[in-house]
């Protein structure tokens, strides 16, 4: 009896001592929430993590802004999903309408906004100003991501709280465009006073969102919402800061695109040798998925046949593209002569979100819409002089309508392949209840193959066709989402 009792006690003791280790549920290779969000360094790491997550979206930034436009022509390695985008014939299972990486960024931002304030109590060296700056960056990047989503899809779900545990995974329906744009505006306005004008070094200033980066995004959002006076005010904040200037035309390619972080740049997505961009496999001739459209050389930039030393638009041949084989040169070229490509392990050209020339043209567009075409023409002239642009047609600075078309064309030349063209054309076309829908049709008549144009012209009459379908996986997992009516 006693022996049995002894055995039972021994077994229980053994069980009790080792129980803790077996019952321990902490992950072996990760940090749980209780161990993170304790110091200000961790908050900074989380913020940098948001910038890193933007890198995963780079291919989509390019495709969403350029694929459906007249700037690009699909190459021999383009897959059917990319051809469908060009033909305006997308299905819901097109892999490039998957917004997963965008919502990942949004979740990281929400995490910071929700959890960083707790660090104030835990870390005494963490100041309120530092916290505001971190939250300001998160709000800005969240607003930028939602801005891409709302311009590309129209209506998307608006998630403003972080998904921290499995319980937080709830299905939410789409919100209307107006609600999302208002949220973007309120986020940006809330973040504005918190962001510094400089982080201390040039690379940090261009790679992280400064006050001026926020102003740039705000200007873009205001112009999308047709709020011209506010857009002009934001552009003026950047122009009057005196911190940005147009790079000399002779150094256009080398300074802005080859080296990056130039005096003209406001906010660039940084890549480097450790983190390469996806463009090598998209643009180099051996792998070409996307090339430049052939009409760019003579119809967009112009070819000078008159002068003995021909004038060349510095933004065109051998900067944006190479006219010999219509390769997109901006991200894969190693010099401005059109001969040498970057090596595959040197493909770290930055993705430029906003640069000074973009802001000048946004200002020109917004003051032109306020019936000041003459002033707008002066800005455009400044841009064209920097570029040694060729005069394909005279600039009529007395007429608002013709000036607005001229500014759109100048944006096409200046910001070629920087993910802006589709949004520029759509913004101009949808103004005043699609008064200028013809801009979309003209673009389609160049970009689509001859035997699909008629169907495309009809499709573009339907405003829902200007936005993407929702990815089929999202519809299957979130039953509250409704597909864009054009793609039913």
């Amino acid at each position, binding site marked *: 009896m006693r022996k049995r009792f002894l055995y039972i006690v021994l077994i229980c003791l053994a069980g009790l001592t080792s129980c803790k280790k077996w019952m321990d549920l902490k992950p072996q290779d990760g940090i749980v929430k209780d161990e993170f969000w304790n110091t200000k360094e961790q908050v900074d790491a989380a913020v940098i993590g948001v910038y890193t997550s933007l890198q995963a979206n780079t291919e989509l930034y390019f495709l969403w802004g350029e694929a459906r436009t007249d700037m690009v022509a699909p190459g*021999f390695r383009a897959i*059917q999903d990319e*051809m*469908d985008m060009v*033909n305006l*014939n997308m*299905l819901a299972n097109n892999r490039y309408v998957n917004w997963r990486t965008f919502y990942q960024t949004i979740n990281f931002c929400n995490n910071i906004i929700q959890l960083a304030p707790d660090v104030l109590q835990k870390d005494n060296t963490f100041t309120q100003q530092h916290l505001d700056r971190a939250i300001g960056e998160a709000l800005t990047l969240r607003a930028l991501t939602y801005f891409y989503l709302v311009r590309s899809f129209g209506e998307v779900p608006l998630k403003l709280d972080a998904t921290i545990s499995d319980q937080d995974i709830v299905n939410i329906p789409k919100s209307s465009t107006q609600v999302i744009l208002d949220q973007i505006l309120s986020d940006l306005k809330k973040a504005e006073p918190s962001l510094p004008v400089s982080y201390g070094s040039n690379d940090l200033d261009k790679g992280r969102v400064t006050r001026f980066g926020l102003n740039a995004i705000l200007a873009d959002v205001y112009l999308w919402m047709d709020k011209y006076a506010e857009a002009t005010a934001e552009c003026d904040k950047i122009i009057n800061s005196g911190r940005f200037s147009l790079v000399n035309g002779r150094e256009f390619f080398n300074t802005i695109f080859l080296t990056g972080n130039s005096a003209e740049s406001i906010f660039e997505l940084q890549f480097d040798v450790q983190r390469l961009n996806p463009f090598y496999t998209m643009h180099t*001739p*051996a792998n070409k998925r996307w090339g430049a459209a052939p009409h760019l*050389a*003579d119809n967009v930039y112009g*070819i*000078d*046949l008159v002068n003995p030393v*021909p004038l*060349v638009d510095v933004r065109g041949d051998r900067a944006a593209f190479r*006219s*010999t*084989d219509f390769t997109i040169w901006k991200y894969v070229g190693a010099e401005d002569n059109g001969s040498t490509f970057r090596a595959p392990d040197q493909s770290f050209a930055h993705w430029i979100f906003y640069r000074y020339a973009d802001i000048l043209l946004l200002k020109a567009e917004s003051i032109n819409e306020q019936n000041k075409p003459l002033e707008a023409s002066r800005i455009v002239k400044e841009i064209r002089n920097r570029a040694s642009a060729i005069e394909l047609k005279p600039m009529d600075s007395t007429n608002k309508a013709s000036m607005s078309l001229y500014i759109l064309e100048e944006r096409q030349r200046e910001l070629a392949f920087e993910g802006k063209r589709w949004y520029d054309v759509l913004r101009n076309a949808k103004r005043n209840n699609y008064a200028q829908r013809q801009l979309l049709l003209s673009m389609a*008549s160049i970009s689509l193959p*001859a*035997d*699909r*144009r*008629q*169907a*495309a*012209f*009809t*499709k573009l*009459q*339907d*405003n*829902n*066709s200007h936005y993407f379908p929702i990815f089929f996986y999202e519809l299957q997992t979130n039953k509250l989402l409704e597909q864009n*009516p*054009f793609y*039913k």
Partner: protein
Amino acid sequence: MKHIFPSCRFLLVMAIVVAFYSNCKKSDIKMTTTNDVNIASYIAQRPDSFSLWKEILDRTETSSFLDAYGSYTVFAPTNTGVKSWLTANNVASVAAADLNVLKEIVKFHILEDTITTPAFTDGKLPVPTMHGQFLITGALNQGSVTSFTVNRQALILQSNIRTGNGFIHVIDNVLQPAKLTIAKALEGDANYSIFVQAMKETGHFNLLNTVDPDPNKRWKTVLAESNQALADSGITSYAALKTKYSKTGNPANPLDSLYIYVAYHIVNEIQFLGDIITSPSHLTLQPNEVISTQLINNEVMVNEDEFNGIVEPGVLLVRNKSDNAATNGVWHHSNAHFIAKFRYPTAVFWDLATFPEIMKQPAYYRKALFTFNKNSLTDRPIADIDWHFNGENYLRYEWGNSPTATLYNFACYNDILTIPLGAPSNNNRATWVEFTTPPIIKGRYKVWICYRNRNAVTINVRVNGELMQRPVNLGQGYPGGSDAELESLGWKKYTTGGSFAGRLAGVVDIPTTQRHKLRFEAISGTNRDLHFDMVHFIPVDQPQYLPRFAPDGTKVWQ
């Protein structure tokens, strides 16, 4: 311990028996690999939408093969669509309808291939229906909602429904195949009376009124001219048309110009407007006469051509009056009168180094050297020149106007094309290069290859695949003698000086007036410096060794 054992054993046995029984349930093993249904089952599972269509499929006995394996595309009309078809045809119900008519209708809705909406173009679908006729697709915008249209008769309500053996597209109306032939359809429209009468008198009416059982021979496309189009050109009646064109007095004679006029308006394939612009030229029923088609400002223009620098305006095919499907093809409405032009064969003096890709580079064109590299098998740096992707796969444009630069000093425009070529035994160099010529009028021509004689590589010349009679040795220059003696030996001095020779490769019959293919194939020797300047196509009955070409491109007639 001993008295515990029996009860233990009993408990053990009970435990085993209970376990055995509870585990002996029959487990449902899934035998099927998928829950996907095939087309007929999909339709049967949705009686609210497709009960009438299912009835039609059952009555025509198509349900059985639509449920078997295969790859089909079915356009399935909803019940509303079938009902409106029944009322339009005064049929009480599906059971009362004529079985043959139903069979035709059903076959018109099924394609024996999987076609999804990304394959829809502005023209016809790539494969015909089981009925034999083609369907065309398009898009329609009604009240800011856009849908695909099929055959202009139905809208697609739901597209790309994937089933086990193909795709279903749900449409809102029944598609009706065309009932009339092209001839009957045109006859029924009074606007084409003059054209129809011309068709009758030349014998083409019967041709266009038959539906050939062989689908390879059945399809025709007709570009019909309305009475208004003829009146715009001064022809107000059939008699006027006959007087103008019928020179032999017998329109049924294939040599009669009226016969040629009608034959020139018929193409031997089915080409809707969306398809007709995919090719720059189409052969007509008139032997060796082509019509050229292109899209100008999104309108289909026929025969808008430039010959010898003069633009000849073309004829518009009016979109909303064209694409009229018939049982044996399609006919379109052209808004003006056109006829085959007789062109006298003209010499083509073609400078090889003149093509858009180099002309668009003002920094290099007639200024400097430029190399075109072909980076992969499918890479086409120059649209009209292609070469073997092998080893040294480049082609170089070279220019130089210094009098001592003997490679170019007397070349036409001072520029040449340098192409590395090698015989097939050498595997580090291209063995062939192929050019697309400028438009050459049909006729009989002598082909002269004009080059800078330097390195001994012998090439074969092929025009449209046809081997020319003499191979050309690019290292040989012209011998001594007068121009007439040289011509009799097959040489000519085509420049005003320098080591440039023109060699007669052979005589060729150019069958149609359009662009053709010229190919050089190396058969012996190998060198990277082979310099080509021009190719001359000179009609056999015209002087051959004149004009010569000065370095600035002007023709010299001595």
